[in-house]
């Protein structure tokens, strides 16, 4: 059974690009346009999400808020979360760590780098 990755980004281009790259490697991909949408989709899912890839700057609920909410839930305390953001300041990275992210990739990124990062958490 293939593993499921939730991609959360308000840019349709990034969502399409990530979906294409990840589906090409055999992963199932779910998408959400912001943190709130992601939480709603996760709560209505019958299967669990194996990994989350999220942007930081998003309307309604940003990436930090999403990570904190995910870490508070029993079910997803251990789910790997990769931040994908154009924010590359030390403060952003440290805030990402404190919120509970597993990795942080800076946009624009190479798809090979992202796939390597994903394969670190999913076999």
């Amino acid at each position: 059974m293939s593993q499921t990755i939730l991609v959360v980004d308000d840019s349709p281009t990034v969502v399409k690009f990530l979906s294409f790259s990840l589906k090409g490697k055999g992963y199932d991909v779910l998408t959400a346009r912001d943190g709130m949408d992601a939480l709603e989709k996760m709560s209505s899912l019958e299967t669990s999400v194996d990994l989350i890839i999220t942007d930081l700057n998003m309307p309604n609920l940003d990436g930090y808020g999403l990570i904190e909410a995910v870490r508070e839930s029993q079910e997803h305390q251990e789910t790997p979360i990769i931040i994908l953001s154009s924010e590359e300041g030390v403060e952003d990275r440290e805030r990402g760590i404190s919120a509970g992210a597993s990795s942080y990739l800076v946009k624009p990124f190479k798809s090979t780098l992202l796939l390597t990062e994903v394969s670190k958490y999913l076999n």
Partner: protein
Amino acid sequence: MAASDKVQAKIQREIFELTTSIAGLVASFKKLKRPLAESHEKVPQATDQLDKISEQTEAAAHQMLDQIEQITQREDELIKGTEHLKAKIQAGESEEAVRMIDKIAEMANNNLNDAYMIMDSLQFQDITAQQMDHAASILEDIETKLDTILDAMGDSVRSDRAARVAPKTRAYDPHADLFDRKTNQEDIDSLFDKKQQ
């Protein structure tokens, strides 16, 4: 009261009214000064941001065109290669045919890598969209400042426009940049590795 006293009182009253009116004007101009100065500072910011978008979209487009050029050159070679391959197979030169198949596979693989690189380059759309949102928010800020000036001048343009256009929610990184990378991935990874230890 003597006639001259009446005239003097009238002059005094008019001078007082004039002074009050000038004081009011000075206060109004002071009120205008700040939004005008802020607008003056923000216009170049918005212009710089738009110039950056123009430069970065151009660079990204050139990068992609270079990769497409390489792909099409390889495709030409592939087409010619398959014709030669067919001839070699028909002539029974299997060793040469195998060598050509390896070469064709290598070119196809390079094309695949270049296609992925083009896809990576297409992220410029996300980055420049954020840069445009930043420029738009600067322009919206200028608009607000100009509205303040119009309000101070007793103009009702602002309320008419505000009623027409709902403000757009913008979520963007003001530092988003396609090429100007300030940190490398190794530094970021080491920060996360330390956390996990």
